[in-house]
């Protein structure tokens, strides 16, 4: 009898618990819709898919730590100028203008009348302080500005920066450094570890509230172009550590602006609210097949040309990015973003079509002929290739699978190698790899794109680590074109040098460029319009860098 009562009471308890939980869950799921005043139609609140939570956000608004700072920092701090990642045009922010007095001297004119969010004025002294802070603490200098700068000084409203060597395109990197307030940061003991939880900036928003799962920014009423800023509040709910859940969230319409790859975007996103849901997937970078140029036969330009001509890049692009983006141009430029720099003498905009006959001829010049279905060299051995890439970059993996299939059909024994990112990185940086998938370009500035990939000064010997030019390309003519471009101040000279680089890219094939990697912008026009799109490509739809600032100054109420 006792046991029976125990059993009964245990059952009663369990049922009671479950009922309570059931009741709370109904209440809970209602209150869990994030930013209820946001995407659901709230007039003044903008909800942006936020940083990866992992799963809780760590409060860090230090703009000099781009890998740890929260994305909202881009709306709190501003740089001197913002450079469009699409075509490299400058938009003035804290500088009202800039010019090169000579290829080694850059002068910024500082904007007047700007105040920090605590009321103190923004001056040239802050600019000086910021750059000198980067010099004092190299860990903060993620873009390596002091590798090219030799001195900085200020007179009146002008800040003058001298370079060690002529490097006109580097102005883009210098101009995009966020400006820090001297009166706050001069008393910070260790700015490298400083998390800056009470950020003082010149930007359109200040920090409102912070919770581990969401932070909110409030509009800064004394912002120097406050009339251009429409949202009164910006919410950043944290992403889950589970990418699928994030996609489900985006698909449920929780955000005004999200950055996320969605398969079948027309069905999984647009169809859910056809009136308001839009997307724009412009090219953001190029994905290519890198060949280790220290190894034979990759050091033979004819072999590389043969590979390039053997590939059907359209199919590769389809497999990799499901038709969202297309084949990449072998000019090295992202098209149509950088159309203005495209060398018109390049055939078909640099797009290389699959051409079996031409490929065979190229391979023959390299000493490789088809024998019994195998591409065999002068030593009698079949050509083989192992392509390495991180196993979780799914579009790279899909592209490489197609590449290996296509190469097999021309008789090359091609295989994929799929380690984790760390091993992939080790292989490419040390130069021990055979072939590798990798990214190329995407900074919006042709000089930086080409320089990072082709400048022989980066081509460290095999065994010494390098991130740039890890394929170890060396060409005196390319180096000379690069330094010409670095010191060119007028557009005509810049075009000459850029065209020369495109020709080298096209004829030398240091990298076999395959397809464009996408920038996955997903928008809702329920509350705001003015998003970047194919008809108005003023920036890339990335919500994790200073494109945030650019977009927020373009938004209008819908």
């Amino acid at each position, binding site marked *: 009898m006792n046991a029976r009562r125990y059993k009964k009471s245990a059952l009663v308890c369990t049922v009671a618990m479950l009922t309570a939980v059931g009741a709370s869950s109904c209440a809970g799921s209602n209150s869990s819709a994030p930013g209820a005043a946001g995407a659901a139609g709230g007039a003044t609140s903008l909800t942006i898919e936020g940083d990866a939570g992992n799963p809780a956000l760590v409060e860090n608004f230090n703009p000099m730590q781009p890998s740890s700072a929260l994305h909202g920092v881009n709306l709190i701090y501003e740089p001197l100028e913002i450079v469009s990642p699409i075509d490299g045009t400058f938009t003035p922010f804290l500088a009202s203008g800039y010019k090169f007095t000579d290829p080694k001297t850059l002068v910024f004119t500082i904007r007047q009348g700007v105040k920090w969010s605590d009321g103190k004025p923004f001056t040239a002294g802050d600019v000086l302080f910021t750059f000198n802070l980067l010099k004092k603490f190299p860990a903060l200098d993620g873009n390596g500005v002091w590798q090219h700068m030799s001195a900085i000084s200020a007179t009146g409203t002008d800040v003058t920066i001298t370079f060690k060597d002529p490097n006109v395109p580097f102005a883009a990197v210098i101009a995009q450094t966020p400006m820090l307030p001297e009166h706050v940061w001069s008393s910070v003991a260790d700015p490298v570890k400083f998390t800056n939880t009470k950020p003082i900036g010149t930007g359109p928003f200040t920090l409102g509230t912070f919770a581990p799962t969401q932070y909110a920014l409030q509009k800064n009423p004394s912002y120097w172009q406050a009339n251009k800023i429409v949202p009164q509040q910006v919410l950043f709910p944290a992403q889950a550590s589970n990418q699928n859940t994030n996609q489900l969230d985006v698909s449920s319409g929780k955000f005004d602006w999200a950055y996320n790859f969605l398969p079948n975007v027309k069905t999984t996103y647009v169809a859910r609210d056809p009136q308001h849901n839009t997307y724009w997937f412009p090219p953001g970078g190029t*994905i290519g097949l890198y060949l280790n140029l220290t190894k034979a036969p990759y050091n033979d330009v004819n072999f590389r040309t043969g590979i390039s001509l053997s590939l059907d890049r359209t199919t590769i692009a389809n497999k990799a990015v499901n038709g969202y983006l297309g084949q990449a141009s072998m000019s090295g430029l992202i098209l149509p973003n950088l159309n203005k720099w495209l060398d018109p003498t390049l055939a078909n905009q640099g797009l290389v079509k699959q051409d079996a006959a031409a490929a065979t001829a190229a391979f023959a010049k390299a000493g490789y002929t088809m024998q019994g279905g195998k591409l065999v060299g002068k030593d009698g051995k079949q050509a083989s290739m192992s392509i390495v890439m991180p196993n979780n970059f799914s579009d790279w993996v899909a592209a490489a699978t197609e590449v290996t299939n296509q190469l097999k059909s021309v008789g090359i024994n091609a295989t994929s190698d799929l380690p984790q990112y760390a091993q992939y990185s080790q292989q490419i940086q040390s130069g021990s790899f055979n072939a590798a998938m990798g990214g190329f370009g995407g900074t919006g500035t042709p000089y930086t794109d080409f320089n990072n990939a082709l400048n022989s000064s980066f081509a460290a010997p095999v065994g010494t680590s390098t991130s740039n030019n890890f394929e170890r390309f060396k060409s005196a003519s390319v180096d000379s074109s690069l330094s010409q471009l670095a010191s060119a101040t007028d557009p005509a000279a810049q075009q000459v040098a850029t065209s020369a680089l495109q020709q080298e890219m096209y004829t030398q094939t240091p990298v076999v460029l395959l397809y464009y990697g996408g920038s996955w912008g997903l928008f809702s026009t329920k509350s705001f319009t003015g998003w970047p799109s194919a008809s108005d490509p003023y920036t890339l739809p990335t919500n994790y860098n200073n494109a945030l600032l650019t977009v927020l100054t373009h938004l209008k109420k819908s």
Partner: protein
Amino acid sequence: MTYLTRKVVLFVITLWAAITLNFALPRLMPGSPVDAALAKLGSSGIPVTNAERHAIEVQLGVPNTGLLSQYGSYLKNIATLNFGTSYSFPSETVAQTIGKALPWTLVLVGVSTIFAFVIGTLLGVYAGWRRGRSADSVVTLGSTLFAAFPPFWLGLLMLYVLAFKWNLFPLKGGYAPGVTPNLSPAFFLDAMSHSVLPGVTLVITALSGWVFGMRNNMINTLGEDYVTFAEANGLRTRTVALMYAARNALLPNVTAFGLSLGAIIGGSVLVEGVFSYPGLGNLLYVAVTNHDFPLMQALFLVITLSMLVAIFVVDLLYVRLDPRIRQ
């Protein structure tokens, strides 16, 4: 040596062995943690520059000291609860990161274990008592099937149907976004609603251990002489089953508890990931993908030690509950 002293000594030695094993394991890892940090930057396909790599190396401090001195400082750090700074969360110490996640896992795992124990035991008693009949088959086959469901798979299906399609439960997290954890009843209800789906997933897949343990105990006990004797004396089978058999069979089986807890902890690693639940399991997955030395080391240690402590406590309880052990 008394039973108690022996158990304590064993506990201490096992503790030391687990700590040392935990030190040895991460040292076998290939690859550089700096590259993992750069992976976050490089995931869009835009190449990482030399300048960025250098800055992160200066910031994250790649270890390059000898093995023995590492072990010495490792032990010292364990004693002072200093687990270093993680590469995934460089703004706070590992101890802080784990400290935030620990209560969530403790609650989820603890409550799930209790529910699994209660429900499983009740079902096991029922099945053992009604042995051979259809009720028994339903319970045993049902719990066998449930135990064979991969926990993450069950979680995914429940997430899809109950959270995404029918909107009955939240899609992710331990609580609603924008809320700071506090001790109010509203927060408590909110947290509960977020833990229903992961909790139910864990309970369903962990039931069978208890069901079968109890069922077998019941069957064995029902075959004992004193039960036959009681029946011969005129007591009804049902009375005997519940008053004598169930109570004797209810004695917590330490091994079964240890195995069940291990299964729930293991299951929680994947289930927390599926539901983005802010516990230790989720952190472990993040740490592994990031090749995050300090975080991984600390997490594995905390998880192993929690299990050790839990089993030790149950061991002590067992001494109190079973007089036969005390001699």
